[in-house]
């Protein structure tokens, strides 16, 4: 792009608003005559402005004015020097009339509303087949145990990590790219006497830098808002010494190794959040981090594969811990009721995994399809072993994700 083009493009915004002076407008239009690139660029600007201006208008919800009245009822305003007690009874008839109008409007829209409600709304960026209705969902996060507002006990390194992802709603690939950029450019650091979750390094003064809020380890609060922002908004809050998510020891451990552990951490949390799961994490020595998830069995395998994919092209591995019990894995198996055929393929690996401490290997490699007779045997074994109690089905899987850098010698 030439300097000439640059100069003219800087006037696009005012040009579109009709705010350019006559001479500037004529100069810009003359340039546009000759420059196809600038014409195309202007077209993009026009589409952008039009797209925003055409967003659906949101009327105030039903009863809004009444609720405002309710809040200010009894309040005094001070007009000039004279105090005034507000007599809201005089407003109510007006409000009532308004409510009738709004009510009618909503009734007229009701049919459309019901029609809309019947259409399944796909979950953002989630793969529908991995997230059955009633399994993982965006609501799960909202019902997560409340974070202790008073701060954690001194010396506790555990934190709870929530991500308000401004990117959801964008395409998956784009979001992932941006998340990767976020991981590269941002580091958590803290003020107010707390301890940083990740060794403070820098908060790049980039427009794409995230903002972090932070609660320190000793009840101190700290807040870091990097200039610019809004790729994402991370909210980190300390929790009590025994956070609910860690009452049970992990049953499986997924190890993710990558050059950018912070980025991996962020992407792990993004992924967990997308499945509606809150994640706890702790920082271990060096650059290592542990993330803990309590994941519903429904769709667990899909979640695992997605998490494992985050470490690509470097390495990841899955293993069981000594706390993994038989009935836990059996429960996993019978939860595939609706996808029995698919479950059979998973079964082989999972049955093998019933032996505590045994590594399951790398996830993203193609798995061998068992021979037909072996399948049948394993299916029979699984069905025989499967516990019948429904409560076991409901038990979430405690997953620990270990994130670390590759060892130096392997780089």
């Amino acid at each position, binding site marked *: 792009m030439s300097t000439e083009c640059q100069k003219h493009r800087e006037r696009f915004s005012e040009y579109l608003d009709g705010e350019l002076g006559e001479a500037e407008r004529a100069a810009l239009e003359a340039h546009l005559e000759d420059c196809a690139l600038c014409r195309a660029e202007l077209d993009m600007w026009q589409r952008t402005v039009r797209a925003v201006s055409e967003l659906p208008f*949101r009327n105030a919800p039903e009863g809004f004015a009444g609720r405002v009245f309710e809040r200010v009822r009894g309040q005094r305003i001070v007009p000039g020097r004279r105090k005034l007690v507000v007599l809201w009874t005089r407003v109510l008839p007006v409000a009532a009339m308004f409510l009738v109008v709004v009510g009618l409007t909503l009734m007229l829209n009701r049919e459309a509303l019901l029609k809309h409600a019947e259409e399944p*709304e796909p979950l953002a960026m989630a793969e529908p087949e991995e997230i059955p209705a009633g399994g993982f969902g965006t609501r799960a996060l*909202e019902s997560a145990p409340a974070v202790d507002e008073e701060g954690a006990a001194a010396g506790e390194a555990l934190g709870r990590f929530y991500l308000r992802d401004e990117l959801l709603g964008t395409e998956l690939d784009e979001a992932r790219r941006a998340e990767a950029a976020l991981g590269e450019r941002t580091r958590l650091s803290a003020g107010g006497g707390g301890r940083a979750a990740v060794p403070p390094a820098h908060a790049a003064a980039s427009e794409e830098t995230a903002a972090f809020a932070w609660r320190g380890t000793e009840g101190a609060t700290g807040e870091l808002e990097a200039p610019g922002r809004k790729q994402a*908004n991370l909210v980190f809050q300390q929790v009590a010494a025994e956070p609910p998510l860690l009452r049970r020891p992990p049953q499986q451990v997924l190890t993710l190794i990558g050059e950018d552990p912070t980025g991996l951490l962020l992407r792990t949390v993004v992924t967990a959040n997308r499945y509606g799961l809150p994640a706890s994490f702790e920082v271990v020595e060096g650059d290592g981090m542990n993330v803990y998830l309590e994941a519903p069995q429904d769709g667990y395998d899909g979640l695992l594969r997605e998490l494992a994919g985050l470490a690509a092209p470097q390495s990841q591995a899955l293993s069981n811990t000594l706390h993994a019990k038989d009935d836990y894995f059996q429960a996993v198996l019978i939860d595939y009721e609706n996808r029995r055929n698919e479950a059979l393929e998973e079964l082989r690996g999972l049955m093998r995994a019933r032996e505590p401490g045994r590594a399951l290997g790398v996830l993203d490699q193609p798995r061998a399809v068992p021979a037909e007779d072996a399948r049948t045997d394993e299916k029979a074994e699984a069905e025989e072993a499967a516990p019948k109690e429904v409560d076991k089905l409901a038990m979430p899987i405690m997953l620990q994700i270990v994130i670390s850098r590759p060892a130096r010698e392997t780089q």
Partner: protein
Amino acid sequence: MVEAVPSDAALVHRAREGDVEAFGQLVERHQDYMYNAVFHLVRREEDAEDVAQEVFVRAYENLTRFQGRAKFTTWLYGIMLNTVRSFWRRSSRHSVLSIDVPSDGQDGRPPEIESGVEDPADATMRREHVRMVRAGIARLDDQLREIIVLRDIQGLTYGDLADALDVPEGTVKSRLFRARRELRRVLEPYYDGVS
């Protein structure tokens, strides 16, 4: 015979003199525009309701400070911006936020400008389009998001923007330029996909 509709200034005057019906009329008159602006800034229906209520409560409490130099709506937009900024600060400090529920109908309501019989494919594309544009706006820096919403959604003039944002008109121009340039950059991959 045409009945005269009282101006905002007249209603404010009456409200300040103690006529609460007049304030009620102001709320009714401006609630939809104010709510629409708040909704596009905070993005969640339940937050939008709280913040928009707060705007009017603050306006009511500060009615005596309205000097009438600017338009009432511009003054109200100024209060709205302060309220939204407080909300942003509060939520970045305390909130545990769930993932954003995308698209229209995030509150179970349908997109509001839809009528007649629409092809389901068109409706889907339209929802997707709205989702993309909203997500794009959400990715903007706070200041840029504010100005995009006030100008391209609410339609404020440069002069009103300067008053509401309390910045010189030159700043309005440069900020709006940056906002649109950034949004155009963010939406470009999407345009590539649909054009």
